[in-house]
């Protein structure tokens, strides 16, 4: 394994609340809203990489919509026989997994050059993801400001010590019905939690509540239609795909940060790039180039492979496959069950600028033995 593992046991527990002790500490130590490392790229080249274009995203979105509608028609046509299963398999992944990458890229505003196109796909994909579009726009902004900073990042998928049962359940989408859906109903009733209020500006609270009401209205209408039709079919097409189609989103997305460092300000230490097959890359819109995305979030998904080629000399070697990445991660999360400070520190190539050890060790003294 081309990695060095360090870590020890301190007995200190991480507080992942966004309004707790870790939050205060992150602000006091300068970890919150810090300046992050990025590889030097000439302005002219970066400007060219950042350029927006409607073409690739229109092509991909038309194909996406055609596949969604096509698989839905097949699933409806064969409803009641086993022949509907393959159509639901395709429909589920498109609805519940590929919508995550569309939500993400359009939330950044980098998919299309035309703003309304980004906004339209963002709203649709947010609904498919069972995510409040207003709340999640802000939580994702925070994720980019304070990536895997404990007490600040609202989108840490696997906390320490890892909850393996929860991670496993996330493949089934059950957690969306345990947390996301009740969360939308709560917001629709006009209640935001203190944590949500910590990253959503007050002027956006009402927008978040109104957005939740629209989502809830569609779910209630779908449930009503299912009762009227005395059929599960409407629920299999709207909402239900979270249960049977989320697995690909979790399979690819879990690898973004799991097992790597927290409380550092260098994405090479806390984020992972993994080479993937073309189908997964299309579903995931190239977010397998995740170090590159975090370092330069303005670069559209279709330019990430070029950015990767340009800066890979300065990054840890990417995992050659998802299988390789999970093999790397598994022993790390197992060890984190007992030693939550344990993490995987990935080796840099000789051509890379070194990690700023003194800075990171100062902030997380528990990270080195």
């Amino acid at each position: 394994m081309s990695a060095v593992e360090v870590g020890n046991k301190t007995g200190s527990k991480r507080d992942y609340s966004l309004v707790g002790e870790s939050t205060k500490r992150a602000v006091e130590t300068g970890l919150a809203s810090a300046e992050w490392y990025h590889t030097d790229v000439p302005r002219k080249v970066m400007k060219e990489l950042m350029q927006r274009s409607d073409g690739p995203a229109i092509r991909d979105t038309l194909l996406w919509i055609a596949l969604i509608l096509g698989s839905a028609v097949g699933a409806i046509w064969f409803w009641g026989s086993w022949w509907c299963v393959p159509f639901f398999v395709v429909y589920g992944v498109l609805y519940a997994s590929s919508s995550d990458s569309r939500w993400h890229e359009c939330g950044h505003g980098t998919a299309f050059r035309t703003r309304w196109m980004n906004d339209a796909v963002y709203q649709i994909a947010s609904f498919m993801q069972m995510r409040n579009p207003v709340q999640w726009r802000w939580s994702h902004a925070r994720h980019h400001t304070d990536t895997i900073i404990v007490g600040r990042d609202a989108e840490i998928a696997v906390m320490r010590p890892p909850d393996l049962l929860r991670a496993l359940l996330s493949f089934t989408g059950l957690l969306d019905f345990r947390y996301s859906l009740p969360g939308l109903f709560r917001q629709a009733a006009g209640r935001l939690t203190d944590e949500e209020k910590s990253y959503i500006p007050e002027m956006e609270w009402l927008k978040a509540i109104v957005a939740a009401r629209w989502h809830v209205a569609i779910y209630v209408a779908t449930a009503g239609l299912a009762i009227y039709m005395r059929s599960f079919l409407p629920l299999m097409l709207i909402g239900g795909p979270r249960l049977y189609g989320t697995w690909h989103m979790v399979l690819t997305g879990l690898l973004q940060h799991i097992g790597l460092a927290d409380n550092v300000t260098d994405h090479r230490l806390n984020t992972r790039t993994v080479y993937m097959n073309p189908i997964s890359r299309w579903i995931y819109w190239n977010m397998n180039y995740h170090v590159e995305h975090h370092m330069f979030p303005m670069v559209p998904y279709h330019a990430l492979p070029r950015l990767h080629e340009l800066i890979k000399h300065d990054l840890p070697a990417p995992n050659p496959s998802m299988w390789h990445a999970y093999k790397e991660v598994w022993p790390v999360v197992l060890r984190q069950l007992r030693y939550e400070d344990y993490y995987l520190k990935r080796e840099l190539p000789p051509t890379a600028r070194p990690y700023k050890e003194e800075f990171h060790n100062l902030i997380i003294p528990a990270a080195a033995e």
Partner: protein
Amino acid sequence: MSEWVEACAADDVEEEDVIRFDHAGRTFAIYRSPDDEYFATDGLCTHEKVHLADGLVMDDIIECPKHNGRFNYKTGAAKGAPVCVNLRTYPVKLEAGMVMIQLD
């Protein structure tokens, strides 16, 4: 008391681009529009204090490099989440091939 300060040579900024200008402990962004006009704003995004000079200029919009917050750099208007606070703008003039901005 306002004063005109020399920010850069007109050719230092490419068309539809932006550069950073630091002066007296403050940082500014100097823009050249696709119509070959020059503009100046505060240099840091009002959302998370990121240098806008690393961002992308598209028509009359500057997009922050960190969270893609968008401002109209001609008026300073914030164009929606995650930016809510407008950007301060400064008068600009060209003098002998130099971009001058008027500061307080």
